[in-house]
């Protein structure tokens, strides 16, 4: 008996290992021309795991505080063995994870995988996307460099525009009226404790729902396969799909390593609250579409302040986006066309505004 089988047998005798993984053995993945989109969720999960691991390693040296944060990251980048690699992978992986999370969301949208009975999978997924953006926003400040400092200042200022609750929210986020060392400590707390805690719960729920409800197939295919079950084509999740997913993870690892080695994440210049903001300061790319929209809205729309209107509109759109599955038809044969149209528009808008924001001065 091989050592692996020995371990398995040992586990099975004590915990009923085979019963535990039995659902995974039964699990299948539909096979069709769009099956490769199913890898995106797994890649996002893989990048999240990378984030957790590299984040824990960074915690060994990182010191949250206006007087120490920048120096500690500088120390990680220059003195700690492979510190540069860990930090660069953490930064690149964060960006790739946000990208794959967006891509995963749009693939789910276009494949209409959010339909009944997977409404809650969608809701938990969108909430996870918001959390991931929260991770990005809070993590961006932690090196305490000039760009991060002013981007946080602008970002929290926008939060302050929300009527009634905006100002208290801004003060809560900043730990005072201005962005200071107190903000950094707070953001560190959000980044390494609050957000990971919530994300872990949501992620487990999301995975549990995926496991429980199985993998969705596009409505047209669902109609065909229901009418003609013999046309149905599937692949076993364990080991066939998982091995392919593993290959995708390896590719992602290679891309991450190449980015980290060829383009190590820049540290920038230490934040100085007393200097003026650099000209043309912009947020990270995943906030650009919102930032650019807010910039384009006139200062007054009728009698409402343009920025407040923009912030409220984004809040409303976010809420409707979260509830999108509840507007969809229950019948796979009659999917709502306007939702597909909206998805195309949303993708074009986010991509277009991001590029515009990137190019705009």
């Amino acid at each position, binding site marked *: 008996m091989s050592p692996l089988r020995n371990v398995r047998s040992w586990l099975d005798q004590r915990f009923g290992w085979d019963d535990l993984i039995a659902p995974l053995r039964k699990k299948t993945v539909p096979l069709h021309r769009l099956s490769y989109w199913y890898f995106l969720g797994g890649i996002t999960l893989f990048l999240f795991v990378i984030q957790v691991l590299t984040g824990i390693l960074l915690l060994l040296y990182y010191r949250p505080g206006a007087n120490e944060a920048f120096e500690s990251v500088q120390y990680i980048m220059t003195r700690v063995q492979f510190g*540069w690699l860990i930090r660069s992978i953490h930064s690149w992986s964060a960006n790739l994870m946000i990208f794959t999370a967006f891509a995963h969301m749009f693939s789910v949208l276009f494949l209409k995988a959010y339909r009944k009975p997977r409404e809650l999978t969608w809701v938990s997924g969108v909430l996870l996307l918001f959390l991931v953006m929260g991770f990005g926003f809070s993590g961006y400040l932690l090196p305490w460099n000039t760009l991060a400092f002013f981007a946080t200042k602008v970002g929290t200022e926008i939060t302050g525009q929300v009527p009634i609750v905006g100002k208290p929210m801004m003060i809560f986020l900043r730990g005072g009226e201005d962005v200071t060392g107190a903000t950094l400590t707070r953001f560190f707390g959000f980044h390494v404790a609050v957000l990971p805690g919530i994300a872990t719960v949501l992620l487990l729920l999301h995975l549990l729902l995926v496991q429980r409800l199985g993998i969705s197939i596009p409505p047209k295919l669902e109609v065909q396969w229901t009418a003609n079950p013999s046309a149905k084509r599937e692949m076993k999740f364990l080991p066939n799909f998982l*091995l392919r997913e593993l290959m995708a993870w390896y590719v992602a690892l*290679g891309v991450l390593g190449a980015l980290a080695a060829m383009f190590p994440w820049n540290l920038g210049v230490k934040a100085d609250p007393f200097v003026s903001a650099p000209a043309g300061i912009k947020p990270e790319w995943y906030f650009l579409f919102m930032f650019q929209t807010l910039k384009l809205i006139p200062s007054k729309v009728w009698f409402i302040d343009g920025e407040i209107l923009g912030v409220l509109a984004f809040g409303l759109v976010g809420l409707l986006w979260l509830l999108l599955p509840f507007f969809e038809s229950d019948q796979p044969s009659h999917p709502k066309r306007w939702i597909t149209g909206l998805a195309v528009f949303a993708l074009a808008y986010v991509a277009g505004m991001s590029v515009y924001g990137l190019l705009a001065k």
Partner: protein
Amino acid sequence: MAFWRNKLRPFRAAHIGLAGFVVLVVCLGYGQTANSCLDCHSALPDPLGVTQEKFSQDIHAQKGLTCASCHGGDPTSDDPDKAMSRKAGWKGKIDRKEIPQLCGSCHSDPAYIRQFNPSLRTDQLGQYRTSVHGKRFAAGDTKVAVCTDCHGVHDLRAPSDPRSTVNPVNVANTCSRCHADAGYMKGYSIPTDQFAKYSTSVHHEALAVRGDLSAPTCTTCHGNHGAAPPGVDKVQNVCSNCHAFQAQMYERSSHKKAFEAASLPGCVVCHSNHGIRHPTDAYLGTGPDAVCMRCHTPGDACDQARAGLLSSLSRLDEAVKSADSVLQVAESSGMEVSEARLGQDQARDSLTKARVTIHSFRTELVDQDIQSGLKIAAKDLQAGNEAMVERNHRRLGLGISLIAIGIVLAGLRLYIKKIES
């Protein structure tokens, strides 16, 4: 108070309010037409024309002074005969000969000036009398500058106002109106190319191009109200106001005595005066920009010292540049070399210090700065080289990792093929 609270009915209060408003409007209207001088002079052509708009810009008008403060008369009267009555003290056009004294009647009175600006000096007239302008004026030369020539008249602004003719940015232009006019300056045996030279100088660039208001203009070296050319033996005292370290070095140098003995004007000998350019190491060379060799003989001890100084400066300059170049490549490759970059600032400071120490004309002192800079530059260069080695290691590591990942991917593919066949 009780009466106002209890007895004053709203209707009556409205009447009183309306009456007060009418009185206020009348008073304001009266105030606006009180200066009858401007009523006529605003319609007259130059040089008699003074508009309300122009006069309102004048610092004196803003402080509450009127035409009568200088010209006398009665500006409250609409009757020209009364307004410009000699009996009412009307002086008419102020004679040029009287201008310094007239301005000084207020500006030399500390008690009077204190009401408006306690920090404003009151020695301008006294200083003017010691100036070349003032002395010539006292001797009867009315072509020389008086107060109004530089400060303007009727729209005279505070020197801190960028539109003022005596604002640091505009001083050189103001002086040049006379001093660059060869025709006007005919008869005074001084050159008229100062402004043209100054316009090419490092000082002009700092002031006019970079907007550095601390950079010198004409009055910084010559004085303003007491304007006079600095004496040959006093030039370094003028330059040392800003270039303190250079002056300290020069004071203790052998050149000071030699220049004094030869009646040479210190700093000006090497750097010139109005057309001062940014000094370069070429000043120590033997080319067209060389300054040492204007006096020294090739091959003498001083020439050898000059060559040694130039070689030391060039060595440090080169060392700083090569470390910069390596660090730049390392930085653009994503390597963290900010500490070495910071160190480069220190190396550059050493180079600047060495260039300042040149004014001591002592090779051993210059060498101290050079050695200190070379040490820092060498350390930074080593940091840059190490960063480049590290970068290459990373790329090698990446290559090996990618090969390993490729092998695993190929293995996985084969395994999938095997279990699916």
